[in-house]
């Protein structure tokens, strides 16, 4: 067994602020012709519509207001449980009228991790915005999947564990609301 000691501190976070779209998704706010595409518009380019699930939801602040100035990023393995560095990343914002985000992606598979354990299917999710001095991290698991032996879920001893599980609405669609504060506060992760 070998380990070595790190010698530098991680650079501190600062808030992404209200204008993060300029740098991260300029096309979404109509700054056109600068970048051909915004990154993460389509997480799996080779898949067609019938192979995808839909996850929709809103991000609520402590006043119960659904926010439209947050940026969400997701990262996941494919349906076979394989992580591929060129696919599986998505970046999106809530619609400014409905305040809902919609992610169309492949339903991830379960996988055997570096730790030798079987992980239930999940999507990693991060949230950045004005008012958040650090990016928040959580996960989206799926109702109906085998979840009780998942290495993360099985160590969470918290009544809000359901905040990590997307509700199944129909065969291919799920609901995943995020609560930044309040009784239903979503579980956030120190990844």
């Amino acid at each position, binding site marked *: *067994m*070998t*380990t070595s000691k*790190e010698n*530098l*501190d*991680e*650079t*501190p*976070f*600062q*808030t*992404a*602020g209200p*204008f*993060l779209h*300029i*740098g991260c998704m*300029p096309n979404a*706010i109509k*700054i056109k012709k*600068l*970048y*051909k*595409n915004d*990154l*993460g518009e389509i997480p799996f380019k080779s898949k067609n519509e019938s192979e995808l699930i839909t996850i929709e939801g809103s991000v609520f*602040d*402590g006043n119960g207001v659904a926010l439209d*100035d947050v940026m969400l*990023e997701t*990262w*996941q*393995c494919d349906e076979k449980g394989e*992580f591929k*560095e*060129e*696919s599986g*990343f998505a970046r999106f914002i809530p619609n400014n009228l409905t305040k809902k985000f919609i992610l169309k992606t492949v339903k991830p598979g379960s996988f055997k991790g*570096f*730790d*030798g354990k079987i*992980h239930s299917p999940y999507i*990693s999710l*991060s949230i950045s*915005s004005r*008012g958040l*001095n*650090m*990016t928040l991290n959580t996960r989206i698991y799926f109702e109906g999947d085998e979840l009780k032996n998942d*290495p*993360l879920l099985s160590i969470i001893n*918290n009544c809000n564990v359901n905040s990590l599980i997307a509700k199944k609405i129909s065969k291919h669609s799920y609901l995943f609301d995020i609560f*930044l504060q309040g009784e239903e*506060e979503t*579980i*956030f*992760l*120190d*990844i």
Partner: protein
Amino acid sequence: MNVKSLIRRNYKKQPEVDFPDYKSSIFRAPKNKKISFPSSDSEILGPIFDENVIGELDNNLTLNFSKNKNSPLGHKIIVYGNVLDQFSKPIEGALIEIWQANSAGKYLHNNDKNTAPIDPNFAGCGRCLTTSSGYYEFLTIQPGPYPYPNRGIEWRPMHIHFSIFGKSFGQRLITQMYFEGDPLIQDCPMVNSIADEKAKKSLIGALDTSRSNTQNLLAYKFNIVLRGIKQTYFENRREGL
């Protein structure tokens, strides 16, 4: 077996998320403690972006939105540095995205209510991938400071927003670079959400006079450190042996 794990984040050197001096955090900062757990594949791995997503002028903010090659207003600056991990190892191919206000302190964004003028030749966004030595460089315009509503009117120090993807999703970083000598830094609640003085200072780009004097523009150096990944090797052994 080769087990990888991210170095645990040192929250003493990070901003406080629940920091009421920054008013917008009051109804957005979660109140409960985050759950810590061993890194798994999704944190160790991450999306990688290749050269063909980057356009030729993406790291030149003085030209990437200019009309008929007109320059944006303000003075040109170079912002450069290296992206390293916590073991001082350069990170090649890290994606850096930046965004900033123009020289008058105005963002090209509908939600910016500041009355300062927009600059038709400046969008304020750029991106690049780091080289094999972790090096990056942007040519841009000195962003202006600007007023914003917080505890009454306050002024943001001049800054550039940075978003960085390393090799791992757990290395993901979003931060801001400030400018050496800016008197507005010391009272900024976003800066002061970091308690550790050394950590705070690490966000201040240093004026590089030698480079400034040879290139006819001011140069600022800003190094970025992403989390390190520890590797622990165990001998492969069958159970029970």
